[in-house]
């Protein structure tokens, strides 16, 4: 079927609301940006280069990791591998939004993905689970996060770390706590809890035994497999198979 009209209309008013909704967490992103800016200049990047990297890459963890590999020379293939591994979660995040994204034109679809990052995705994905379609947060929230990341990097390169030790204030945990709150705010069913258990075990196993930075994708795919094989109950519950396993 070739549908020329796309049913999802981005509403400017909602985009604005979502921008302000993610402003509080964006303030924390400024602090991380400052930490990145400081780290980048210490590794020999020019201030504008660090800001440029934040503006175009816009993926904090991978930027820290890449700058960590900086020297007088940088090995390109290992750097690509690290950046790809850390950011490979975007593949799954984008895929999870596909049911909504296919309702907008390809231009808007890939434009929105430019701003895809953990926090705005978590909001959108969680609301989708509750039956609300929200691509506005990807755009509005994404803009807030992107600007905060750039501004933070700028502050870091020109003024050093804003805070001597952001970790002592617990600021390194902002994103983790945010994502956890999003996860727990979503729909919980026995199926989801089983998937999360499998995910937790798989991600820990990957952390321990697989190459670094593969644990998010491995864990999430393991959890997704539970969803693939265990469908949410259909109108007619088919319990025949289960009964036959209980012959004792």
């Amino acid at each position, binding site marked *: 079927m070739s549908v020329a009209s796309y049913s999802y209309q981005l509403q400017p008013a909602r985009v604005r609301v979502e921008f302000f909704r993610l402003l509080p967490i964006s303030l924390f992103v400024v602090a991380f940006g400052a930490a990145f800016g400081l780290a980048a200049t210490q590794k020999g990047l020019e201030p504008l280069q660090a800001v440029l990297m934040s503006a175009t890459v816009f993926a904090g963890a*991978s930027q820290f990791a890449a700058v960590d590999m900086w020297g007088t020379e*940088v090995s390109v293939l290992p750097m690509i591998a690290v*950046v790809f591994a850390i950011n490979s979660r975007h593949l799954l995040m984008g895929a999870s939004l596909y049911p909504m994204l296919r309702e907008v034109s390809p231009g808007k679809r890939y434009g929105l993905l430019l701003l895809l990052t953990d926090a705005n995705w978590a909001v959108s994905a969680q609301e989708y689970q509750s039956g609300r379609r929200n691509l506005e947060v990807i755009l509005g929230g994404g803009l807030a996060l992107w600007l905060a990341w750039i501004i933070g990097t700028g502050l870091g390169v020109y003024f050093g770390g804003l805070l001597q030790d952001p970790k002592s204030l617990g600021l390194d945990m902002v994103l983790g706590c945010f994502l956890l709150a999003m996860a727990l705010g979503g729909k919980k069913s026995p199926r989801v809890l089983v998937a999360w258990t499998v995910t937790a075990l798989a991600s820990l196993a990957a952390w321990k035994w697989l190459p670094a930075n593969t644990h998010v994708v491995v864990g999430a795919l393991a959890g997704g497999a539970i969803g693939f094989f265990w469908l949410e109950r259909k109108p007619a519950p088919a319990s025949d198979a289960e009964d036959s396993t209980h012959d004792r």
Partner: protein
Amino acid sequence: MTVETTTAGILFLIAIMTAVTLVTRFGGVFIMSFVKINPRIESFINTMASSVLIAIIVPMAVTGDAGALAALTTTAVTMLALRKPLPAIAAGIAAAGIVRFLA
């Protein structure tokens, strides 16, 4: 292959990082555009979505310091009790700060 960190070299490295990250941002949606969505795929996608969050958080909790563990535990308890994200996140961050101050 190595690149010297001259001005041109750094710009080249930033361009590579940007391209690699763009591939990850676009790739999932691009691949999905060839997949026929049926209930099974839909169920896979939906379960995977919240699993991404768990796969980020659990190793963070297990391999992190006492402050990280305190932050995540406090956030979880507060979130389940109040069902409001902002107090839960604030309590978690405060917990990390307190535990690290005491440690």
